[in-house]
């Protein structure tokens, strides 16, 4: 129990003392902060010196083709590597994934072949010993393909289903890392042992699996204690002061990123939790504001140094070597108080103290009721750094229920410690439409993937016929998508179970099956063109569509025009409901996202011409954004169109990216801040779900494209995520520049 810390901190007691309940602890003890940013301080000399070392290491990383070093001998796990330091004397928060800064580790249980390939691409080799281990065991990738049928394989190879986590770790699961700081390992093991005792009686498959999972979690907790002791930390007990609270939370997170290399490994919502410890220490005079900021700066610095070993093909999909260490900041309690604390400000302040950065992926939970001082600071930080994204806290609490949630990956609500999600990547919906127009054949290969789609031979496309075929196609695609997801997650649980993360989650959590769609704006515009204009299909000798001629004008998504916006909303609803008809593994609840991250470029490359006039190979718009250059009435009309998509149909998130030059936000700084706050209030007031905000000059981007060495920290927000501009491929960079800039003449 919390002996010492409880005395010192004089914390308010509640349910959290009896059961594992961090939310209760935070609700009872947090100090909401209604002031402005004036209390914030800069980085300490120690922090600055440490960051200089990190910047140098990142430069070496770039010089070595994006990978500073690899450990090719060790399978990474919670205790696989001894302690690592940036500079031990300067670090107040310690811990690295391996024994050396930016040295990447192998996590082969997702798929040994992918790891071998990634290592080979860097001119090195996985040691024989590690290879041999997989002669005797199976990895997730092998297991999934053992269960896949031909239909799934075809959908996958033809790019209908894309980015599936079937050869890499699924990620997205958020451990409630605060639990380690509040309870310590021993108490958490005690609770897990108790859970396991309760799983008794007739041994169903569910119970057997659960007993095994809890046992694995207990093993992980014991390992985390060992990992702590390597750094001289006694994690068996709760954190006793603010530095320990930060350190303990980081240790829990570190265990997760040593064991797993999931596509997205979010942190959760730790700032206001940590604030409770910091405020107590400040009140007692144990620490100064400089020290409080130093803890957060150094914690964030560590999060920025998280790396995973990725193959080059992965980078083609998810440009910029992302890790999605997403931290949700702000929001309101359901009781009406704000969750904003001084430490919410301190997290944002790291963007000044350490400079702009895509990681950790700082996500502000925006409520109409957030304190004005916080709203203004967020807007200011956005204008200065482009390193914040925003999500609608009022909407998510209303629809999803809990006020204690993090953001999984880019945009997805996840209740902390109570629910998890199974990442489902996404369906390429424009390719689905093209199958509907081509008798069920994939448009490039001519391979038949869908049976029973009537052929369309008329020169001009007929809306009713197209809709009928398209709906049939969506029904079939949903069926195949659903079975694919079930296989992937069954196998991931079996062969690459996230024991370190799930040790910090309730033992039998609720689950979301997070499906996704790419290309909704192309679908809306294509169907609108067919309905309101005239679309002539150009077919080759095999009868496959190769191009479309659009005659006459038609309403385009992104102009606040109900005629087309309604199509986007209805198709999303239709597909979402179709997916929900299928039974999910572990009785997961079906959700859907409209999100592409940076993969909109790659999806575009693989997709033939579409009836909206988009040529073969042209990039999709990111997330739920309107297509580039088709939003003719500026930012608000564009945002209003996206806001009309119903979050209830896409509860995994509706991503929207807004890019603007500073001058277009307002003529002076004061107006810019005020207008950005107004824009966010209004967009979220209209039930928009998510907004990336890029405040950048096209000139800056062009110069960074030409001279990347001058812009090591330039951050760009794409759908649901931020990246270092210079770590994007040249193709991605050009796409970002070409993207709608809402520039005003």
């Amino acid at each position, binding site marked *: 129990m919390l002996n010492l810390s409880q005395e010192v901190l004089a914390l308010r007691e509640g349910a959290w003392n009896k059961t594992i309940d961090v939310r209760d602890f935070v609700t009872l003890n947090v100090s909401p902060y209604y002031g402005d940013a004036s209390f914030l301080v800069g980085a300490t000399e120690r922090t600055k010196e440490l960051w200089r070392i990190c910047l140098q290491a990142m430069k070496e990383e770039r010089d070595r083709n994006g990978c500073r070093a690899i450990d090719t001998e060790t399978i990474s796990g919670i205790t696989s590597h001894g302690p690592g330091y940036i500079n031990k004397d300067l670090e107040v928060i310690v811990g690295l994934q391996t024994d050396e800064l930016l040295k990447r580790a192998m996590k082969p249980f997702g798929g040994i072949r992918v790891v071998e390939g990634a290592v080979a691409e860097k001119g090195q080799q996985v040691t024989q010993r590690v290879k041999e281990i997989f002669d005797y065991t199976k990895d997730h990738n092998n297991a999934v393909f053992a269960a896949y049928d031909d239909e799934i394989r075809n959908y996958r190879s033809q790019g209908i289903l894309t980015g599936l986590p079937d050869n890499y770790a699924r990620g997205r699961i958020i451990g409630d890392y605060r639990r380690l700081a509040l309870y310590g390992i021993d108490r958490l093991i005690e609770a897990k042992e108790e859970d396991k005792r309760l799983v008794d009686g007739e041994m169903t498959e569910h119970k057997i699996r659960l007993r095994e999972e809890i046992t694995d979690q207990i093993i992980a907790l014991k390992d985390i204690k060992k990992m702590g002791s390597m750094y001289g930390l006694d994690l068996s007990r709760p954190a006793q002061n603010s530095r320990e609270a930060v350190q303990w939370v980081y240790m829990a997170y570190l265990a997760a990123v040593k064991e797993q290399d999931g596509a997205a490994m979010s942190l959760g919502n730790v700032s206001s939790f940590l604030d409770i410890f910091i405020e107590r220490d400040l009140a007692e005079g144990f620490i100064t504001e400089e020290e409080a900021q130093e803890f957060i700066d150094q914690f964030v610095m560590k999060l920025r140094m998280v790396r995973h070993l990725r193959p080059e093909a992965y980078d083609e999909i998810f440009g910029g070597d992302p890790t999605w260490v997403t931290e949700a900041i702000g929001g309101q309690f359901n009781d009406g108080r704000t969750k904003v604390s001084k430490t919410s400000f301190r997290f944002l302040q790291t963007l000044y103290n350490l400079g702009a950065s895509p990681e950790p992926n700082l996500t502000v939970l925006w409520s109409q009721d957030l304190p004005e001082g916080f709203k203004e600071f967020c807007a200011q930080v956005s204008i200065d750094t482009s390193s914040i994204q925003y999500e609608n806290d009022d909407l998510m609490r209303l629809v999803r229920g809990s006020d204690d949630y993090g953001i999984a990956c880019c945009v997805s609500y996840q209740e902390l410690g109570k629910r998890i999600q199974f990442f489902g990547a996404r369906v390429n919906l424009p390719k689905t439409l093209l199958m509907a127009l081509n008798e069920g054949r994939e448009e490039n290969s001519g391979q038949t993937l869908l049976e029973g789609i009537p052929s369309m031979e008329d020169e001009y496309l007929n809306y009713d016929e197209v809709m009928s075929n398209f709906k049939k196609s969506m029904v079939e695609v949903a069926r195949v998508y659903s079975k694919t997801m079930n296989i992937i997650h069954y196998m991931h649980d079996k062969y690459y179970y996230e024991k370190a993360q799930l040790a910090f989650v309730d033992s039998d959590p609720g689950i979301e099956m997070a499906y996704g769609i790419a290309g909704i704006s192309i679908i809306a515009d294509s169907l609108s063109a067919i309905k309101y204009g005239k679309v002539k299909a150009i077919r080759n000798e095999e009868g496959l569509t190769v191009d479309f001629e659009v005659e006459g004008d038609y309403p385009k998504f992104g102009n606040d025009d109900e005629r087309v916006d309604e199509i986007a909303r209805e198709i999303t609803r239709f597909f979402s409901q179709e997916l929900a008809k299928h039974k999910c593994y572990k009785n997961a609840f079906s959700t859907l996202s409209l999100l592409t991250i940076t993969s909109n470029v790659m999806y575009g490359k693989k997709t033939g011409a579409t009836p909206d006039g988009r040529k073969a190979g042209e990039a999709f718009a990111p997330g739920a954004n309107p297509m580039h250059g088709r939003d003719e009435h*500026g*930012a608000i009309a564009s945002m209003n169109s996206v806001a009309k998509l119903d979050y209830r149909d896409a509860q995994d998130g509706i991503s929207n990216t807004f890019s603007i030059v500073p001058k277009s936000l307002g003529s002076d700084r004061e107006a810019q801040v005020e*207008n950005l706050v107004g824009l966010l209030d209004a967009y979220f007031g209209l039930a928009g779900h998510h907004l990336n905000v890029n405040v950048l000059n096209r000139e800056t981007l062009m110069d960074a494209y030409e001279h990347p060495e001058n812009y090591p920290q330039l951050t760009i927000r794409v759908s649901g995520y931020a990246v270092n501009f210079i770590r994007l491929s040249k193709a991605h960079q050009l796409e970002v520049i070409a993207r709608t800039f809402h520039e005003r003449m």
Partner: protein
Amino acid sequence: MIKDGLLIPQEVAQLNSPTSQQLRVHSIESFGTHDGPGIRMVIFVQGCQFRCLYCANPDTMDVRGGHFLDIEELVNRAVKQKPYFRKAGGVTVSGGEPLLQRTILKKLFDRLHEEGINTVLDSNGRLIDQHAKDLLEVTDLLMLDVKHFNNEWHKKLTGLSNTSTFKVAAHRESTGKPMWLRYVLVPGWSDQEEHLHELGNHFKNYKTIERVEILPYHQLGVHKWEALGMEYKLKDVNPPNAQKLEKTASIFRSYFKDVRVN
């Protein structure tokens, strides 16, 4: 394509048909942040008689161009944007020259007021008649573009005289309703200090002038001139530098309390 110079009066007059429910519009910008206070929906109307050499929107000059939009459609658009307007924002009508469509705009502004939406008119003050006065009566803020104080220079710059602009200003002053003056600063054309002082002296006692905005000349519209096959005569004129802007602002500040560079 249109040529320099005056248009046939009948065509201009047609823009102000009292029976019409439609506005001749060039384009709509939903996120206007430089044309009046707050976040504004800016309706750029089609048609203008001025031929300002530096015009950034020469494609709005032709009174026969653009497209018609129903007043109700414009009101609907504005209503959908209301959450963004908050306290300060609203709708700005710019152009082109809005006064050419004054009767229709009066109807639009009346409807916007019914919906509780603030109205701003961005005008060069080309004409003043009863219809224009009626429109100004329902204009919450007039942004009057004074192109030049000196009539000869004004004619050189715009092709027309500035007499009417001053009449509009005087009328606005008589109504007691707020106005901003806007002044495009073109090096070598509208930056002569003596004329800046004359302008200051002329307006310094106006009680309705809440703000003076200096709009630095820029060349972002040049490609439109080329696309329209029209000759852009200020190719060699560079945008004013910071020093020039500050100098101009300081002159204006000796006459007006709120002077800003937009």
